[in-house]
């Protein structure tokens, strides 16, 4: 038997790995992938809680999160593409025209 807490801890660890990844990487796409990892960690948390509560609402929530993630992915990658076309880089360190 796997305790719900174990799933939640796994989710928390993955979430924090995603957060750490956002800082460590400089490639905008990889940063975005790390954000996706965070969202997946949340999904896992939702599903685990949903089972623990015996309610299915959490799963529906996850379904919507996935849809949102897809929409965000489409737009986000388009933004990264247009950034690359404009500036020939997707290294976030080099994207700092706007500051102060």
């Amino acid at each position, binding site marked *: 038997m796997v305790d719900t807490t174990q799933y939640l801890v796994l989710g928390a660890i993955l979430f924090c790995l995603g957060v750490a990844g956002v800082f460590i990487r400089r*490639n905008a796409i990889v940063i975005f992938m790390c954000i996706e990892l965070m969202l997946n960690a949340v999904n*896992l948390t939702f599903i685990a809680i949903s089972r623990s509560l015996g309610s299915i609402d959490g799963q529906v929530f996850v379904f919507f999160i996935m849809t949102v993630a897809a929409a965000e992915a489409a737009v986000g*990658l388009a933004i990264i593409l247009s950034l690359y076309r404009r500036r020939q880089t997707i290294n976030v360190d080099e994207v700092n025209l706007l500051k102060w």
Partner: protein
Amino acid sequence: MEQVLFWICGVVSIVFAVMMILKRNPVHSALCLIVVFLCLAVSYLLLGAEFLAAVQVIVYAGAIMVLFLFVIMLLNLDDEVHSPGKPRMALIAGSSIGSGLILLFLLTGGVFKALSGTRGAEKVVAGNTQAVAELLFTKYLLPFEVTSILLLAAIIGAIVLAGKKG
């Protein structure tokens, strides 16, 4: 059975997540992420969310990752190179401390205590898809329709941003 699979999935997903954030090559990172997604799909199965496991494979591990890879190839990216003179270490240190602290909060703050010892009813039985579907098209009718707006906005956005020549 569940124990074993959970541990395998858990360990593999953590290992690959770590690899994802450490691999220099974005393509490798993407591939690692696919593994994480698949592991999570198995976890969903363990949790009795079959429908979501399927969606996870179809949408995430399938479509979204393909999209990622396409973009990576489109841009023809090489390994990340360190840009010199940037306080990289500070950022890394800060981030690890930051995310570590959040993790510490969640774990030691007793945040998950409320649900410890529970694992939920086994009642979510046959036809998980049906159960989700029934909720989705009644109680969650409005969010469902709003989703279509969201997707439409995403279509327009992607075409606008990536479409014409800049």
